[in-house]
């Protein structure tokens, strides 16, 4: 089976569920979510067992099926699966912020849209052409606009939607203008062809630098790198929580996929040093801003938002190294980092969804005494926080470790110092959450925490993944080879 059948399957699944939503008016909308989960799981099985990488011939060289592309497809599918589970859990909160009769408040559509996001992400993972890359990125971004602003009776959600819309469109403007210049300078839209032109670029490098700057500004917005990170905390706080989870994993992965694809020709061109310098500066600034601002946060969603900025800093740092070191390549480290980041972030958001549903608040105080209310959830969140902080023997350790190895190998000692200090800061604010759960007493009339068996299974699997990947990262290290 050629790899592009997977995207077609996901799109057909999404369209089919939309039609069910439109015609079966009396159906319980949750069923759509369960159907979606089953469908995505089936496609995931197809990706693991049934893909023949050599069968994508008819797509005329704009569709790659290398290991990285298949890995990011899997990442998108797993992410969508977990988001759908969280969305089902979050449904009561979502419906309380929508108009209409119970059961007809747009839950069906909310459960279909992640599938289109997933299709966009999967398509993007394989694109080796500016056109396809741009269209896939916009499919993802525009769908995100819709779902971020989905809770129409919640001002926070609407404001987050407007902010995301304006800054997302701004970054699209920069990115597209940069792509237009890249096309103009090389006369090509295929990245491999662009690379051949740029490798023997003999002329003035000023237009190349201008193009690179435009692309970097656009992509810095998308991945949330300082100084273009200011939209992230507000948008993360306002969006429905399952969508925040999707944003922090999916949208970040999308930004990095595009960044990696576009960096390849630029790093082979005469402006290689300028590109690496700019990446290094962005990485340093992002690490400092993300970690310092996270320390003072009292809202758990904003804390995770700043934490996602901080992680973007580590990812950019891996890319800024620019060369393999110690047997690992920058692109491989980014893939491994994103894979482990998915597991631990989803775990944190899963606990947040349950606590939010019971207590009606995203503040850190809502987590007070969680260890007494539900030892299971408290333990899961401890694992997630330890992993996000990068404690050894958890999944988060290896991503940070390898990016430090890379930057040390490249001899960029200033950036290495910043990163080590930033990682140390991380311990403080992640452990603040743990302190809330174990040292503070719960509010006396705290409502019980209820969640479905499906969510319980998902949380258990994520916990297992955090520990297993921390002890035995073999499944992901195959990505690392230079």
């Amino acid at each position, binding site marked *: 089976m050629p790899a592009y059948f997977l995207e077609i399957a996901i*799109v057909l699944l999404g*369209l089919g569920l*939309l*039609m069910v*939503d*439109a*015609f079966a008016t009396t159906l319980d909308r949750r069923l759509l979510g369960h159907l979606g989960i089953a469908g995505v799981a089936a496609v995931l099985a197809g990706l693991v067992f049934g893909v023949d990488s050599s069968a994508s011939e*008819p797509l005329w060289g704009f569709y790659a099926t290398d290991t990285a592309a298949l890995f990011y497809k899997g990442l998108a599918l797993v992410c969508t699966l977990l988001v759908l589970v969280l969305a089902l859990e979050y449904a009561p909160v979502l419906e309380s912020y929508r108009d209409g009769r119970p059961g007809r408040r747009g839950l069906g559509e909310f459960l279909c849209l992640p599938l289109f996001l997933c299709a966009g992400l999967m398509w993007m993972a394989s694109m080796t052409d500016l056109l396809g890359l741009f269209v896939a990125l916009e499919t993802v971004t525009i769908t995100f606009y819709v779902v971020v602003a989905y809770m129409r009776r919640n001002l926070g959600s609407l404001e987050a939607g407007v902010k995301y819309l304006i800054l997302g469109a701004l970054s699209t403007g920069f990115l597209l203008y940069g792509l237009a210049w890249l096309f103009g300078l090389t006369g090509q839209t295929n990245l491999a062809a662009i690379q051949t032109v740029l490798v023997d670029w003999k002329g003035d490098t000023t237009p190349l630098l201008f193009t690179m700057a435009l692309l970097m500004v656009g992509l810095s917005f998308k991945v949330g790198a300082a100084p273009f990170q200011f939209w992230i905390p507000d948008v993360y706080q306002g969006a429905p929580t399952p969508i925040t989870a999707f944003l922090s994993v999916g949208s970040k992965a999308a930004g990095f996929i595009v960044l990696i694809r576009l960096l390849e020709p630029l790093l082979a061109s005469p402006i290689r040093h300028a590109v690496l310098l700019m990446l290094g500066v962005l990485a340093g600034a992002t690490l400092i801003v993300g970690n310092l601002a996270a320390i003072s946060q009292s809202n758990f969603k904003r804390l995770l938002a700043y934490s996602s900025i901080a992680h973007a800093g580590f990812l950019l740092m891996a890319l800024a190294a620019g060369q393999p070191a110690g047997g690992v390549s920058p692109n491989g480290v980014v893939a491994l980092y994103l894979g482990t980041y998915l597991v631990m972030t989803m775990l944190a958001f899963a606990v947040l969804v349950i606590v939010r549903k019971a207590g009606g608040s995203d503040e850190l105080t809502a987590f007070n005494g969680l260890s007494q209310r539900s030892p299971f959830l408290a333990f899961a969140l401890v694992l997630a926080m330890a992993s996000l902080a990068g404690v050894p023997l958890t999944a988060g350790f290896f991503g940070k470790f390898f990016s430090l190895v890379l930057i040390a190998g490249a001899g960029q000692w200033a950036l290495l110092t910043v990163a080590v200090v930033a990682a140390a800061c991380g311990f403080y604010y992640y452990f603040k959450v743990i302190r809330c759960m174990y040292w503070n007493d719960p509010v006396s009339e705290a409502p019980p925490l209820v969640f479905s068996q499906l969510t319980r299974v998902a949380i258990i699997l994520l916990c297992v993944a955090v520990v297993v990947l921390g002890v035995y990262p073999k499944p992901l290290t195959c990505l690392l080879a230079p």
Partner: protein
Amino acid sequence: MAEIDNYHAVLLQLLLVIGLAATMLGLSVLVGRAGRRNAIKDSAYECGMLPIGDSQPRFSVKFYLVAMLFVLFDIEVVFMYPWAVVFRDLVAQNAMVFWGMLSFVGILTVAYVYALKKGALRWDN
């Protein structure tokens, strides 16, 4: 270039039209007193009564909804035109070009049916 010479007449026409309109508007402001505005003149005319509400009435959100749907479905034609131009040449080699467009239109149809079923085009409620 040679072909640009053919457009001199169009350019001349354009200048004339804009010039004429600008002159007329400018003269009426300069010479006529009718163009002077004041608060009473700017208010909405409601049968000699004091005006109620805004002079720019708000319209129903339905208008926006239809306009948005129109923009979305309208813009898709942009792909059909170049497709139609090369269709005859390409379909001789491979029927893929036909199925490609059919799937594109199919997705649009699903979207249209969805909008219809959700009542986005109903005016009476």
